[in-house]
C-alpha cells in the first residue's frame, strides 16, 4: 500500500510474526513429506486425496501433487465409484481448479488438470442412445467457455487462457461458428490492441477460415490490412501490430501488396522518423521484394535503401546494432546469390543449388556470412544446403560449427531435411580433406539419398 505510514513494530511483534511464519513453514513441510511418502508407497486412499487438496490449496504450483492426485483418482477412487459419483468428484476437482486459477491464473498445472477432468467426464446421465447420454459432458463444456472468457476479462493477455480457449473451441461437442471468434478477438483488440495473443488467435482463425473457403482470403485480408494499419499508425512502437502485419504480408509473393504496404510504412516513417519497427519492417519488405521479384525490381536501389535504414536503426536502437550489421551483410548476399541462380531457368533444383554453391564459393563467403544466410528466412531449404556446402568448402576447418548450424536451421523446415542435412554435414566433416566441390556434393547427395531411404523405410 502506498501513502500508509509504516507503524514501527516492536521486537516482540516481529518475533511473534517470525514464529508464526516458522510454524506455517513447518506445517507445510510436514504435509509435503507426508504426501510424497504416500505417493512413494502408492497410497491411493481418499485420505491421501484430501491431503492433496489441502496442499494444492496452499501451493497449486506443486505439479507432482497434481500428478499424484490424478493417480489417486484413477487407481483409488474411480474404480469403486458409479458414473455419477465420478462425475461429482470431477466437478469437485473442477471447482478446485477454478478457485486456484483465480489466485494463480498463469500456472500450467492447474489448466492442465482442468483439461484432464473434462476429458474424463463419464458418459451419462442417460444410457447410450438416450438423448441425455452426453448430458454431463455438454453441461461442462457450456460452462467452460464462460470460465475462459471470465479469465480473459480479468487479463486479456493471459496466453495460457488463450491457448486453453483454443482447446475448448476445438473440443466443444457442438462446435461454435468460427466467425464468432473473429468478433471476439476484434473486441479484445479494440479494448487494447497491444495483445499478441489476441492477434495470434485472429491469425489462426483466419487461416483456418481461408483454408476451408468460408471466407474470401483476398477480401478479408484487405480488411485486416486496414485494421492493422490503424494500430501501426496509432502506436508505431507496439510490436504486436507489426508482427501481425508481417504475418499478413507473408512470404511476399504479391508484388502489388508488398509495394503498397511499403509505401504506407514510408508515410508513417515520415511522421515518425525514429520509429524502429517502421524501419525494420521496411528492410524486411525490401528484402522480400528482392527475394521474390529480383528480375523486375530495382535491386540496387533497394539494397541501398536497406543499408541506409539499417544505418539509422543502429543509431536509434544501438543495443541491437550487431543484428542490424548482420542484416546489412545479408542484403547484398541475398541479391548476389539470387542473381547467380535466377538465370537458371530450368526447374532443376540440383542445378540451381550447384550454381548457388558455386557463386557462394567464388564470392568467398565467410563463415559468418554463411551462417547468416542459413538462418535468414529469405532462403529455401535447398538454397541453404547449397550455401552450407559452399561455406564448408571455404572454411575447411570450422566445419563443426556448421554442422550444428545446419541441423538447427533445417529442423525449422521439416524433419527429413534436418536428418539429411545433418548427415550431409557429418559427411562433409569426415571428408574434410577431399579436394573438389563435386566430390563433396556427391557425398552429400549420397548420404541424403540414404537418409531419405531410411526415412521412407521407417
Amino acid at each position, binding site marked *: 500500500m502506498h501513502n*500508509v*505510514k509504516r507503524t514501527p513494530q516492536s521486537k516482540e511483534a516481529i518475533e511473534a510474526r517470525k514464529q*508464526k511464519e516458522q510454524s506455517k513453514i513447518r506445517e507445510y513441510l510436514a504435509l509435503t513429506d507426508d504426501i510424497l511418502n504416500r505417493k512413494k508407497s502408492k497410497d491411493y486412499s481418499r485420505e491421501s486425496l484430501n491431503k492433496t487438496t489441502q496442499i494444492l490449496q496452499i501451493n497449486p504450483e506443486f505439479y507432482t501433487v497434481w500428478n499424484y492426485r490424478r493417480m489417486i483418482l484413477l487407481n483409488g477412487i474411480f474404480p469403486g465409484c458409479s458414473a455419477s459419483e465420478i462425475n461429482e468428484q470431477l466437478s469437485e476437482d473442477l471447482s478446485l481448479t477454478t478457485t486456484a486459477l483465480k489466485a494463480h491464473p498463469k500456472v500450467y498445472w492447474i489448466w492442465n488438470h482442468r483439461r484432464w477432468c473434462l476429458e474424463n467426464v463419464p458418459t451419462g446421465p442417460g444410457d447410450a442412445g438416450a438423448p441425455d447420454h452426453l448430458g454431463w459432458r455438454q453441461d461442462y463444456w*457450456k460452462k467452460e*467457455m464462460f470460465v475462459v472468457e471470465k479469465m480473459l476479462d480479468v487479463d486479456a493477455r493471459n496466453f495460457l487462457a488463450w491457448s486453453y480457449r483454443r482447446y475448448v473451441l476445438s473440443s466443444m461437442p*457442438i462446435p*461454435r*461458428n468460427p*466467425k*464468432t471468434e*473473429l*468478433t471476439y478477438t*476484434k*473486441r479484445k483488440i*479494440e*479494448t*487494447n*490492441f497491444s495483445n499478441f495473443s489476441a492477434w495470434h488467435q485472429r491469425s489462426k482463425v483466419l487461416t483456418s477460415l481461408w483454408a476451408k473457403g468460408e471466407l474470401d482470403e483476398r477480401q*478479408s485480408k484487405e*480488411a485486416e490490412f486496414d485494421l492493422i*494499419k*490503424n*494500430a501501426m*499508425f*496509432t*502506436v*508505431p512502437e507496439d510490436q504486436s501490430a507489426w508482427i501481425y502485419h508481417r504475418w499478413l504480408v507473408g512470404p511476399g509473393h504479391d508484388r502489388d501488396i508488398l509495394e503498397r504496404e511499403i509505401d*504506407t510504412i514510408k*508515410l*508513417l516513417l515520415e*511522421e*515518425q522518423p525514429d520509429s524502429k519497427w517502421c524501419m525494420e519492417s521496411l528492410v524486411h519488405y525490401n528484402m522480400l521484394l528482392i527475394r521474390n521479384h529480383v528480375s523486375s525490381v530495382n535491386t540496387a536501389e533497394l539494397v541501398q535503401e536497406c543499408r541506409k535504414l539499417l544505418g539509422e536503426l543502429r543509431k536509434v536502437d544501438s543495443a541491437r546494432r550487431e543484428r542490424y550489421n548482420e542484416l546489412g551483410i545479408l542484403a547484398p548476399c541475398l541479391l548476389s546469390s539470387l542473381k547467380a541462380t535466377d538465370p537458371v531457368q530450368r526447374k532443376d533444383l540440383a542445378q540451381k543449388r550447384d550454381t548457388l554453391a558455386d557463386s557462394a564459393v567464388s564470392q568467398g563467403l565467410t563463415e559468418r556470412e554463411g551462417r547468416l544466410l542459413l538462418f535468414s528466412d529469405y532462403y529455401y531449404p535447398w538454397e541453404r544446403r547449397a550455401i552450407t556446402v559452399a561455406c564448408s568448402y571455404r572454411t575447411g576447418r570450422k566445419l563443426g560449427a556448421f554442422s550444428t548450424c545446419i541441423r538447427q536451421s533445417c529442423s525449422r523446415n521439416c524433419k527429413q531435411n534436418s536428418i539429411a542435412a545433418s548427415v550431409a554435414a557429418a559427411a562433409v566433416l569426415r571428408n574434410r580433406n577431399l579436394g573438389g566441390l563435386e566430390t563433396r556434393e556427391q557425398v552429400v547427395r549420397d548420404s541424403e539419398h540414404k537418409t531419405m531411404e531410411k526415412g521412407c523405410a521407417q
Partner: protein
Amino acid sequence: MDEGAFDVVVIGTGLTESIAAAALSKAGFKVGHLDQNPYYGGDEASLFLDEFVQWSKDGAQSSGCSSFSRSGETLPQSRQYSISLSPSIIPSTGPLISSLIASGVSRYGGFRLVDQFGIYNSSGTVRRVPGNKEDIFKNKNISLVDKRRLMRFLMFASGDFEDKNELKGNETTPYVDFLKRVFSLNDEIASTISYALSYCLSPADTTLPALQRLRRYLRSAGRYGSSPFLVGHYGSSGEIAQGFCRAAAVSGGVYILGQSISSIIPSPPSDTTPNPRNYTIRLKDFPDPLTCDIIISSQQYVPSELASHTKHVGTSVSSEAESVETTTVTSTNYTSIARCIAIIDRPLTFSASQDGQDDDSSETADDDEDAELDKDPTESQTTNSNPNPKLKPPTPVDAGVLVFPPSCLPNGLATEFSVTAFIVGDSTMSTPKEKWIIYLSTPISKDDTSSADPETILRPYLDATLRLASPDSSNPPSDAPKSIKPLFTTFYLQSCPLDASSASTSSSTNASTQTATSASTPTYLITPSLPLLPIPSSPDEAATNAERVFWEAVRTLKGSRMSRQSRHRRSRSMPGGVEVEVETEADTETETETETEREIESFWPPLEQPEEEDDS
C-alpha cells in the same frame, strides 16, 4: 463545558467550507458550522426539483444568479431529481478525490464514470471525442497520418513536457495555434483537443495551463475505468459537500442549518473574563449565542464592520510555489456564466447524427463478422431472428459531456466561448428512471453581461442537443429523428465572483493594513471564491482552497490560543508592561510554529486502520 463555545465557526456549507470544516473537526478542533439555507452545499448545492424552482424564485439572488426564464413548473417525482447548482465532473486523480479518500467521505456516497464524450463539429455532426489510444485506433473519421499526430501529441501531453523543446517559448501562445503549428494537427483535431479534451473555454486560452489540465485528465484515465472523470450520485458537488459535513459531525462538529445570522460581535479586549473567545455570533431564531476564536466564511457573509479582522486565504493563482494547480482560466475577459437546465424524457446519443454519418453504423457495415457480435455464443445455432443486426441502437448517454467549440453553430451566439452540455441520467441517482437532465453553460464576456439574455444565448445549443434524442422506438428508424420537447427548462445568468487574482492582491493590502492597525493576527478567514472554471476544475479547486483554509486556520487558532494563554498568564502574574507583552507574544509565536508542526502533520489524519490481519 460551554456548548456554544467553538474553536472555529464556519459559515456556509459550500464545498470549500465543508471540506475545511471536516478537516478541522477531524484534526481535533471544535467546529460549529452554520448555513442560512435549510440544505447543505451553498452555491454548489443539489436541490430537489421543487426546491430548485423555489430557489430560482427567491434564493438565487444571494448566489449572484439572475435573469431567470423558466418553462414548466415542477414535475412529478420532484424529489427524485437532484439539480446541481454547480454541475461538474471530477478527475479521478486530484485534490478532491484525494480528500474524499483520505477523509473516508468517499464511503458516504456513490460515483459513476462519465463515459461518453462528444464534440459538435463544424459540419453540424457530433463526433465521439477520442481520448485514448483505443478510441483513436477505432475511430473511422481520422486519417492514418492524423492518428499518428494526435497520438504523438497525447503522449507529449501526458509526459513531463515542461522542459521539452516543443513547449519552449510557447507557454503563453494560444493553445489552438500551438497545436496546429507545433504538432501539425488539423483544425478539427486541434479544436477537439482544445475544447473537448483540455476543456478550454475560449480560443484565447494559453498553452501551458491547458496542457497541464490535459495531462492530469490523461493520467486520471484508468484509475476507476477508461474514462478520466467521475460524477457523484445525487448531484455530485452538493452531495459531496454534505458528506464532508457528515464527516465533520462524526468527529464532533455541530451543525445549525436554516438559521440566518443576526450579528457577529468581536469580543472587546478584556482582561476580566478568563478565556474570552474572539467572537460572539447571534442567530435569528436561536436562543443561545455562539462564541468562537476564528470564523471562516466566504466574502458574502462578512459584516462590513469586521473587515479589519479578515484575511483572504490565497487562491491558487497566487504565486505560491506549491500551487501545482494551474486550472484557473487566465483570461479574465468574462465574469458571468449563462446556464440552462433542461429535463427530458428521451435518451440522447452521441453517435447518431443528423446526416447519418455515424460511427457505429459504418463500423458494423463493413465486415460481416460483427453481425455475430450480439449473439450469445451458446445459442448461435438457434438465434438468427434479428434480420438486420446493424441496427443495434447506440448506447444512450447517461453520464456524458458534449462540447460545442466557439462558433460551431451557425445560429449560435457563443462565438468567443465554448458551450458545455453535461448530461446525467438515473444511473447518477439524480433523476427518476427514463429522465435526463441537461446542464448547459457558457461564459459571457464582460461587454455582453449587461445585455445578455441567457435564453437567447443558450437556446440554439439546447435545440442542437435535443436533436440528438434517439428516435422513438415506435417510429420506424428510417424517420429523421425529431427534436424533442423538454419537460422543464430554466435559463439563468450566474455572475462570477471577483476574479481570483484581484482578490489575492486585495488580501495582501488588507494584511498590511491590519498589521499596521492592530497587533493581533486576523481571525476572520475568508475562503477564496471559485472563479469561472472549466467543468472538471471546480471541485478540485474547492479542495485545494479548503486545504489552504485549513492550514491558515490551524496557524491562526494556535496563535490565538497561545496569545490568550499568555494574556491570561499576564493578567495574573505580571501587570503588563507593553514591552514584556510583545516579547512573550514573540516567544509563544515561535513555540506555536513548532507545536503546529508537531501536532498536526497532515491535512487529513490517518484513517482508523483495520487491525492488521493475520493472513491465516
